[in-house]
């Protein structure tokens, strides 16, 4: 610890802040807690004075309140809040201080009992309520004020529409290491394949992802979603899931808008360091199938050592290989790596560091936050089983099956650097920068009898490495003009990459019972190499102007704004198959690494050929979205508020698919849509609120879905065909929700929703006389209805003994049906639930927070009802993902001021992942229990 501390204070802190009086070292799991370290600006009279800083927000809306007079009672010291509601008072005499806050339209508030130690700084945030007819001043204690601020900042309570959120505080108490795990705790949200978000059972097509309010591009080649596991929870302030549309949101919002908010800078300088260590019971320290390592993998830069050989890089490369030496050279230029190795599974670990605060720079007070996190994980798929069905005697039976093991070694790291400053008291400028990078190195080895190989036993080996990165920079300005006008603007740029370099797929067969697994001569389907590379960049500019028509808190408000967003994507997918003309029989049982070590690929050897697997594989796309909106917020009396308006949005999508012969396919769409929305909020009493909302939104096809050629999916390898005739989907949504907020931190709500989809895009299976493929069609219509229940309740009201315990749960019940329609008639059921939609989603948990020792414990449960994983083709029933019951436990134990121990146990009952199709299990595996421990040290 001594070493750590010296290292930190000399290197890292100097680098970030120049000087540091105090350092907090915190060791725990991936979640970073901000720990405040004290700092004094003036050494001379450090013992006598201190500094108080904070923000003033509206108790109803959570919005900043500008122009609030702040005064230290009993002195002449004071200041005014700025555009963001923040204030700082330097040189406040030490001792117990009382602050008074005043502004026209608000009830004045006095906060007592603020204990200021000489030479230190502290943060005091305050909420203010609109003045009623009688101008009653309010006096509260500093401690009590904290609760009301929290309540005001609760996005769920203060949003215009229906929002569910998970906050940094909740994440800190859970074992959730990234945003994908954390967002599962939100009502109605499920996460598929560990990264893509389904809200209310609607697929990634109907969810958009923003970072601090601006759209993130998608790094996925075939679907449009942002893998949320790329955001370490240490960077997160909150994840807000908006479920109803208002015109100031993007129009392709249809199911939900996920907004990832990165952490805000603290009012005072704070430094954090964290680390953790743990393991998976089935992987760590055990001998497992794992991918051979390549350099650069530890930081997610392994693609550099898996390059696409230059001789194969262009679409026409293979066609230009005319001589045997050229063909052999091309084969030799591929890395000679085909098989997983038996390796010892690694532990899981994470590290984190962040520095933040507010300090003067060129005469301006600048808020800053810099944060870095790193984690490495070892995942496993134990008892990995897959099967394909055949219809016999009227029921599906197993036709062929494989069992084995898979593993995945992942690294994820990210950082952010946010700056913010009040240029004048009316103008705040902030700059947010975020970068995350992740890499997964997967290996899989399974064996079983294969129908397509004449019922021979085959062994399949796959090595796969996927690397993703997301960068985002946002420059934001906020201005107040007089007392009734606000203007803000944001210029942002973001980019993603996804590289899947050099995947290898190898199939060896047993030529006779008891024989070794061997190379299948002349078979074009036994040795594949795949290179995928995708980048997508966007930039956008948006601005909002808000005018209060009268003064006062309940003034009618008009908002207008506009957005322009430009997105460009380039994707390349090259696939090669190596096929032999004749490998000597005696050599066929050699491992692939020996067959391709040059013994058969030198000079004029005529043993192997390399062929293109598909003629196409390169496409690019552009999208330009221009939008403007007008909306009003009209209060009627003190209890009703009507929000109404419309958004006009034009989107132009252009997709260009290149074929290997140098020709192109162009496709795209150009739509202008008017999207109205109306929301009525009714305050039924002091703690109750009723929201009603109706809106029209849309969902556009994913770029590649518009490309009218067959291609092999990068993910899954399925033959897929786009459809240039796709049109965008229009969605009408109706929501009603009643919420009670009995006490701070408590909520009880019930809501219902109805969504009607006009021409939803569905993925449809098509048969041919040979290879089946999937395509995309506009189905006739779909409906999605459901009920959401949420409760969060402390047990203190029942008995004092139970006071440290709080319970919470959310339950979503839903139903959907899709009419595929004759136009898109397929081999799937014509009438069924939408893919991915579960009939129920349950989250529940209990927290215990000990008053004496500060011990906190959180027990979490989540489960998702059986949901369609893929639609079955006639005569097979649909493939369902069976419910998996997840139980996680987290403990936090502070030891004095400086230490906190931490323990996280995940997946405690290790319920298997299972896909079923009628009586046939199509896929199943276990992920194993995870345990991590950490320690926190604080000075």
């Amino acid at each position, binding site marked *: 610890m001594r070493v750590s501390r010296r290292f930190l204070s000399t290197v890292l802190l100097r680098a970030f802040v120049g000087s540091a009086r105090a350092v907090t070292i915190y060791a725990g799991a991936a979640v970073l807690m901000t720990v405040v370290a004290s700092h004094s600006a003036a050494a001379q009279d450090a013992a006598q004075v201190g500094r108080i800083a904070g923000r003033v927000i509206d108790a109803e809306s959570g919005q900043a309140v500008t122009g609030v007079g702040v005064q230290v009672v009993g002195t002449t010291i004071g200041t005014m809040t700025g555009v963001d509601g923040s204030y700082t008072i330097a040189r406040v005499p030490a001792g117990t201080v009382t602050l008074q806050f005043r502004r026209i339209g608000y009830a004045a508030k006095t906060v007592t009992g603020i204990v200021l130690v000489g030479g230190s700084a502290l943060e005091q945030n305050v909420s203010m309520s609109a003045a009623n007819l009688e101008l009653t001043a309010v006096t509260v204690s500093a401690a009590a004020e904290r609760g009301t601020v929290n309540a005001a900042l609760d996005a769920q309570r203060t949003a215009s529409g229906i929002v569910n959120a998970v906050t940094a505080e909740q994440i800190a108490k859970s074992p959730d290491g990234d945003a994908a795990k954390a967002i599962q705790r939100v009502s109605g949200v499920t996460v598929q394949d560990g990264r893509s978000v389904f809200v209310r059972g609607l697929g990634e097509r109907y969810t958009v992802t923003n970072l601090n309010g601006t759209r993130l591009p998608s790094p996925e080649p075939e679907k449009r979603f942002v893998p949320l596991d790329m955001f370490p929870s240490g960077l997160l302030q909150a994840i807000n899931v908006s479920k109803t549309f208002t015109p100031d949101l993007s129009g392709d919002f249809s199911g939900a808008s996920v907004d990832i908010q990165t952490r805000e800078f603290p009012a005072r300088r704070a430094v954090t360091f964290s680390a953790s260590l743990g393991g998976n019971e089935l992987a760590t320290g055990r001998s497992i199938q794992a991918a051979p390592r390549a350099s650069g993998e530890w930081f997610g830069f392994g693609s550099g050592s898996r390059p696409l050989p230059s001789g194969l890089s262009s679409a026409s490369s293979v066609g230009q290989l005319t001589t045997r030496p050229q063909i052999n050279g091309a084969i030799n230029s591929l890395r000679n790596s085909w098989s997983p190795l038996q390796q010892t599974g690694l532990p899981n670990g994470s590290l984190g560091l962040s520095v933040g605060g507010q300090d003067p720079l060129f005469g301006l007070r600048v808020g800053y936050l810099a944060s870095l996190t790193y984690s490495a994980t070892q995942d496993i798929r134990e008892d990995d089983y897959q099967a394909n069905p055949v219809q016999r005697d009227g029921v599906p039976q197993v036709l062929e099956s494989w069992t084995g093991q898979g593993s995945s070694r992942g690294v994820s790291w990210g950082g952010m650097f946010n700056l913010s400053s009040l240029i004048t008291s009316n103008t705040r400028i902030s700059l947010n920068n975020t970068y995350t990078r992740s890499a997964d190195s997967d290996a899989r080895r399974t064996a079983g009898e294969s129908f397509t190989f004449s019922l021979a036993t085959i062994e399949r080996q796959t090595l796969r490495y996927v690397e993703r990165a997301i960068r985002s920079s946002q420059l934001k300005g906020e201005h107040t003009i007089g007392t009734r006008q606000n203007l803000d603007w944001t210029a942002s740029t973001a980019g993603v990459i996804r590289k899947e370099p050099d995947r290898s797929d190898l199939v060896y067969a047993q030529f006779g019972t008891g024989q070794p697994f061997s190379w299948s001569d002349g078979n074009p389907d036994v040795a594949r190499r795949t290179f995928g590379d995708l980048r997508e960049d966007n930039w956008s500019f948006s601005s909002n102007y808000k005018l209060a028509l009268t003064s006062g808190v309940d003034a009618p408000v008009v908002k207008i704004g506009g957005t322009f967003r430009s997105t460009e994507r380039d994707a390349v997918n090259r696939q090669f198959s190596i096929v032999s003309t004749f490998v000597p029989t005696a050599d066929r049982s050699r491992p692939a690494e020996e067959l391709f070590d040059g013994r058969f690929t030198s000079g004029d050897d005529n043993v192997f050929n390399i062929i293109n697997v598909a003629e196409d594989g390169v496409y690019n796309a552009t999208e330009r979205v221009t939008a403007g909106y007008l909306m009003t917020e009209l209060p009627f009396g003190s209890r009703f508020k009507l929000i109404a308006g419309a958004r006009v949005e034009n989107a132009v999508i252009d997709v260009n698919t290149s074929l290997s012969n140098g020709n192109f396919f162009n496709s795209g769409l150009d739509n202008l849509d008017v999207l109205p929305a109306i929301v009525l909020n009714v305050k039924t009493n002091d703690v109750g609120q009723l929201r009603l909302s109706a809106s029209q939104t849309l969902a556009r096809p994913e770029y590649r879905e518009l490309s009218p050629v067959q291609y092999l999916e990068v993910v899954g390898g399925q033959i897929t065909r786009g459809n240039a005739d796709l049109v965008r989907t229009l969605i009408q949504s109706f929501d009603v929700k009643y919420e009670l907020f009995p006490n701070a931190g408590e909520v009880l709500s019930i809501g219902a929703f109805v969504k009607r989809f006009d021409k939803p895009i569905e993925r449809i299976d098509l048969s041919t006389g040979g290879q089946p*493929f999937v395509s995309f069609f506009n189905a006739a219509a779909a409906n999605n209805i459901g009920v959401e229940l949420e409760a969060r309740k402390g047990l203190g009201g029942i008995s004092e003994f139970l006071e440290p315990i709080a319970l919470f749960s959310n339950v979503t019940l839903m139903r959907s049906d899709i009419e595929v329609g004759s136009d898109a008639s397929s081999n799937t059921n014509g009438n069924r639930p939408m893919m991915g939609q579960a009939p129920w989603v349950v989250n529940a948990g209990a927290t215990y927070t000990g008053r004496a020792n500060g011990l906190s414990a959180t027990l979490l449960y989540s489960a998702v009802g059986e949901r369609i994983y893929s639609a079955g083709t006639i005569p097979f029933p649909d493939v369902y993902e069976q419910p998996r019951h997840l139980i996680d436990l987290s403990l936090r134990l502070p030891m004095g001021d400086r230490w906190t121990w931490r323990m996280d146990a995940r997946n405690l009952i290790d319920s298997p992942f299972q896909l079923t199709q009628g009586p046939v299990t199509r896929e199943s595996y276990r992920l194993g229990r995870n345990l991590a421990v950490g320690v926190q040290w604080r000075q």
Partner: protein
Amino acid sequence: MSYSLTRRLLKVSALASLLAVAACGDDDDDIIAPPPAALTAPTGVAGTSPSPTSIRVTWTAVAGATSYEVERVTGATGGTFAPAGTATATELVVTGLSPETDYRFRVRALRNAEQGPFSTEATVRSASRTTVQVSADITTNTNWTADNIYQLTRIISVANGATLTIAPGTRIIGAPITAGQAPAVTALIVLRGARINAVGTAAAPIIMTSAAADGQRFPGDWGGLIIVGNAASNRTGRTVVEGPAPADTISWNGGTNDADNSGDYRYVRVEFAGAAAILNVELNSFSMYAVGRGTRMEFLQAIRGLDDMFEWFGGTVDSRNLVSYESGDDHFDAAEGHRGRHQFLIALQTGPRVQPRPGNPGALSSEQSGFEVDGCGATSGSCAQGFNSTPYNMPVFANFTVVGPGAGILPARPNGDGGLGANIRRGTGGVWMNGVLARWPEAAFSIFDPETNTRITEDSLNIRNLVLADNARDYDAAGATNRFGTADKFANNGMRSTTAATNTLFVNVPAATVSIANNFAFDWRPATGSILATGGTGATLPGRIGTRVTNYFGGTMAGTTYVGAIDPASTAQWYAGWTTYYRN
């Protein structure tokens, strides 16, 4: 030679009798007119080619001639002259010629029965054909003539109920996949309700081939001929044509008219077809999707296709006289409820294998067979009752000669060398009779899946009077899982087996080790004493087979006493003249 000698003898005898009549009948007139001057040879013989299939021959008049006789021979040298026609004027338009070909002509004068000497020979080349780029679908009735070469620039549909009539000798080409236009694959596809009437002749077959030059062509250079009819199949749901866009938007299941007519196809050769835009998604040389019995298909050849040569998906169309040389996959594939009858089939597979063009996503199959016949082929859905989907797949194959490459050519398979004479699977029924499966390196027969075995026990799958010659084994590997072909099942079906070398069975078919030369003249007749000459069913077809072969080409499919595609007693072979063999 014998022809012109006979002619001369006839002429001489006619002259003699004329003189005799003159001598006997004209007693009163003693004055005999002086003989006219002898006819001279015509001079100035020349020709022009007004069209690629015709040449106008002209010459200078000969004194005293009443008419002229023109003879021609193909080629700049050699050959034997044969009459091309007679003319009273000094010109003759010779038609029915091959384009871009040298012809030699000679002319002599005639005076009644008197013949003058021949002129000197004149060599004339027939005109080149114009290459017509076909880039639009054919939606109205259209004629394609032998004067043009039709180059497909993409997948061209004959749609909207239109009929495309293709004259004998017409050549249709598709660009090689690596040099074509988007989409890279070219093909000709007849949609449901439309027709192609492609009636060639043995002398002038219709040829559909790669656009690449002779010797530069590869399997899979272009797509092939696809016909989509309106007969029934056993698939449900949305089932479309396999292949790249826009073929993959065309549904072929759900047909209702087993008597549907998609046109007339005779003397048609499809070469170097089977293009793939994605590995394992290949077109076939002849793809027949739900084609109905009203369609006429005779004298068809596929050569060097990358995928199957003749594939029937459902439907009822009959055919006869099919030739398949050198497949990249299977020679005859019938599945998805096909109920057509097919007689007189020749298939040959040899080595070395010809790989597709470098850069082409296609590949030779790892499972090549003579026949691959599936009841309902989909394992991933759309067969409503799985392998028992109805209507059952019930093709009839009679009088086939299906010869494999022998050992060491095809990819090895888990049970030994690959290459099955007949791979009968997935619940198919049908009839195989009076045929020979020879030289297959894995086995002559494989009967796979319990459902297919059920077809035997319920008498829906009849295999009889076959010769299994020179195969690694006659039936499936003994004891292999899920295989049901065993000799005892067919013990009373007139099955015969021989180890005689395949080349000894026929008059002129090379041995397995021989790399066959271009334009090789096969003689598929049974050699003297060949086991194939006898042992057929005879005219009376046993059991239920007779009822399955009625209404076949206006009569009933005849049972034969011989086995294989060629009657040993035949003098002219049905494949002669219009079929061909080459490597590239």
